């Protein structure tokens, strides 16, 4: 009788082991294949802005590949902090697993983000960040590095006395501050030749207008550096309009079809391109990794690349500046 009980126990243990391991496998698979819900709030979704278009398509593709649901809540105009905060509030109410956010303001969204965090929503910053370290993860271009590359390249185009003006996008925004700082570092001792910094609030027209004012103010200006797509293209438009491309060299950050055309025409002498698609894609995949509890990097650098008229038709650069979105 005793022996019999022992065997029953043995068989029982074997069965229990089978059940438990099977169950664990099932749970693990379930956790792995969970459909995460994400909301991305970019600065804008503007059909004329290749940077954001490309970034958003990157997030969409990554979400599709990860099997996550992604909702994009975008203000119509960049710099519309009020609308962005309203969208952020809306997003928090939906209680997604994570909010991906590209803050238009350096400080105006922190309160809401804190609320989201308290609700257990993970925060990933894409492209820009805010004053306080609220985020769980940041995926952005190393803007200091981007500015530096531009500055170093610009230095090769100039001589000791060339005067330089900077058209930046928004005063106080992290990207603007860092790019300008990097640009100045890249210029090295030519930094002293920067005569003025103006802010266009991410509007093409304002950038053009400011550039015209600058050209008037500093007739011996030899270079204008734009710190984002709006400011650099706006500046280039103004330079082209006044047929000053022979005299004033335009360099900038962020590419677009228009910027490429302007480079072909010889207005742009150099553009530092952010890897927007990669940034969006990594923003989603890394956030999903974080949600899955896998190891992740808190700061992801999506990288940047200098494009000049000489290398713009090379295969490597074409891949970067012309979005390949033909398939599917």
């Amino acid at each position, binding site marked *: 009788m005793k*022996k*019999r009980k022992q*065997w029953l126990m*043995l*068989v029982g243990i*074997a*069965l229990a082991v*089978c059940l438990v391991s099977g169950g664990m496998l099932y749970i693990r698979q379930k956790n792995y294949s969970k459909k995460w819900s994400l909301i991305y709030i970019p600065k804008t979704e503007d059909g004329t802005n290749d940077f954001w278009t490309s970034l958003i398509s*990157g997030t969409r*593709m990554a979400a599709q590949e990860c099997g996550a649901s992604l909702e994009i809540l975008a203000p119509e105009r960049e710099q519309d902090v009020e609308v962005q905060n309203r969208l952020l509030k809306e997003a928090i109410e939906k209680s997604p697993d994570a909010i991906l956010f590209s803050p238009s303001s350096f400080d105006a969204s922190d309160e809401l983000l804190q609320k989201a965090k308290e609700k257990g929503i993970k925060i990933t910053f894409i492209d820009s960040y805010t004053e306080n370290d609220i985020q769980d993860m940041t995926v952005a271009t190393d803007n200091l590095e981007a500015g530096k590359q531009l500055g170093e390249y610009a230095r090769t185009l100039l001589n000791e006395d060339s005067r330089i003006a900077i058209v930046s996008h928004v005063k106080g925004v992290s990207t603007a501050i860092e790019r300008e700082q990097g640009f100045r570092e890249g210029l090295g001792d030519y930094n002293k030749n920067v005569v003025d910094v103006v802010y266009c609030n991410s509007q093409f027209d304002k950038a053009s207008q400011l550039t015209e004012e600058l050209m008037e103010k500093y007739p011996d200006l030899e270079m204008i550096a734009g710190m984002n797509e709006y400011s650099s293209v706006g500046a280039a438009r103004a330079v082209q309009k006044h047929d000053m491309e022979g005299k004033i060299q335009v360099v900038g950050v962020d590419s677009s*079809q228009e910027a*490429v*055309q302007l480079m*072909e*025409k*010889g207005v742009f002498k150099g553009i530092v391109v952010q*890897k927007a*698609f*990669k940034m969006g*894609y*990594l923003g989603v995949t890394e956030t999903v990794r974080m949600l899955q509890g896998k190891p992740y990097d808190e700061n992801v650098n999506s*990288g940047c690349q200098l494009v000049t008229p000489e290398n713009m*038709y090379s*295969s490597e650069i*074409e*891949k*970067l500046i*012309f*979005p*390949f*979105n*033909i*398939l599917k």
Partner: protein
Amino acid sequence: MNEKNREQKFLKGFKSIQSTIFVATSVLVLCAVLVATAVSVRYTNSTIYENSAIYTQTIIRQLNQNIDSYITYMDNIASVIAKSQDAYQLLYQQIGEDEAVKEGHRKRLLEQFSTILKGRDDICNIGIVQKDGVMLINSGYQATNPDLDLSTQEWYTNAVDNYNQYCLSSSHVQHVIKGQRPWVITLSREVHNFYGTGNSDGVVFIDLNYSAISELCDQNSIGDKGYVFILDQDGNIVYHPSQQQLYNELQTENIDIVMNADSDTVVTGEGDEEKIYTLSHSETTGWTIVGCMNMAELLKGSKEANNIYVMTAIVLVAIAMLISSFIARSITLPIQKLRDSMERVQEGDFKAADDLLVPSQNEIGSLTTSFNVMTHKIEDLMAQNVHEQELKRKSELKALQSQINPHFLYNTLDSIIWMAEGKKYEDVVLMTASLARLLRQSISNEDETVLIGQEIQYVKSYLTIQKMRYKDKLEFEINVDPSINSVHIVKLVLQPIVENAIYHGLKYKESKGLLTVTGYQKDGDAVIEITDDGVGMDEETLGRIFEKHKVNYRSNGVGVYNVQRRLSMYYGKEYGLRYKSEKGKGTTVTVVIPIEQEEHHEKA
């Protein structure tokens, strides 16, 4: 020898046959199942791998042929245009530059382009371009890119001066049309200048979008995670389903491994990342078609099969364990029962064998049968033995009982004679009656036991005779509780004791002796005390009182030893005689027998 020892040691490790059988069967089954499973898993894996490798190879070759014929077809279109009178004359005819004629060429070419474009969705652009000259594209309405220097475009430069051969670009951006920068694959062909004057710098090009190629590549499904991609001769990607991710550095492809592959099949990576690349080079296009399959996915089918194998194996082992435990139990249970009942028999319980059922006709069955037969035989023998012993004891008892001291008889008869001579007729009557009662009781009664009352009567008769013989010497009192009168007592127990008391105690006393017989109940036993106030015994004599040689053959030969033996034979060792004596004061003999007497003694 050594091996045998080891085997024994091994078997000794288990405490029972049951566990030995169980463990042995389980281990055997487990080994068999493990080996079978391992073999099936291995075989399934290699079969699936080989089959899918062959299958993929076939698909990739087929796909290569399809792409070759697709490109050849496109080249035919380009050729037709490049070799047409219109193109050639439009580009190079310098003599008699009649604008109207040129316009005619232009119109016909554009018409041709429109027709081609209408029929085919996979052509993005078609046109004829000439450096700093003719730019004739699609329907002719689209503005060309004025800032583009054609000499920076590989598809153009490669085609020029490369008569009779088409050029096929890799994936690239087409900058020719203003405001459009699509990714295309360009097939270009020189329009040769046969005039001999001027450059041969006209090129016909066809921009292919990816619709046709991706359709060709994707329709050949090689698994959910499998895909097909195309590389050009320099290892640049012509087509890849994840081209966008690759271009954005979000994925990598093992292009180096593919380009440096020696055979048609390359396996790379490890674990979940293990991939099989199947290649096919095309002589026509110079491209390499690569099919990539994820090994894990490929083996998913086999993994499922493996899971089934393993599950089956587990179930089999579980069933085998259950069955083996059942078999082990069914074999050893009868053995255990046999062992248990053997133990009981060992302890003397022969009825244990009756409980044993013969389980079946196997070895254990016959063993059980033999055991049962043997036990029954032993039981019979024991019973026979007991019976014989009983008979022996009975005859012994009879022998003991039947001995009446002849001297007593002679003396009594002598006494009667004397009394008769002395004309004491009343005494004669009394003595004769007493003697008659005595003789009747000792001879006629066949039973082993008598009632205490009868035995007392017997003693009374005896004492009456003796009192008459030793007139001045003996006085007796009999005082028995009537409640024990009906208790059975072994025959002729009291008389020898009384006789002893008279001959050894009272006879040597100078004054008159008193003999008292008292009977009463005590603790469920009947107690009869025979007390004399004779000479008594010292301790030494008392210690030897039960020795056999102390038989007094002068008395009836039924000595104290015999009485004691009969009592203990009959009632058990705890019953019998107890002597208490003091020199000079007398002796008390106590007879203790149980009141409740078991039936089987009566039977016997």
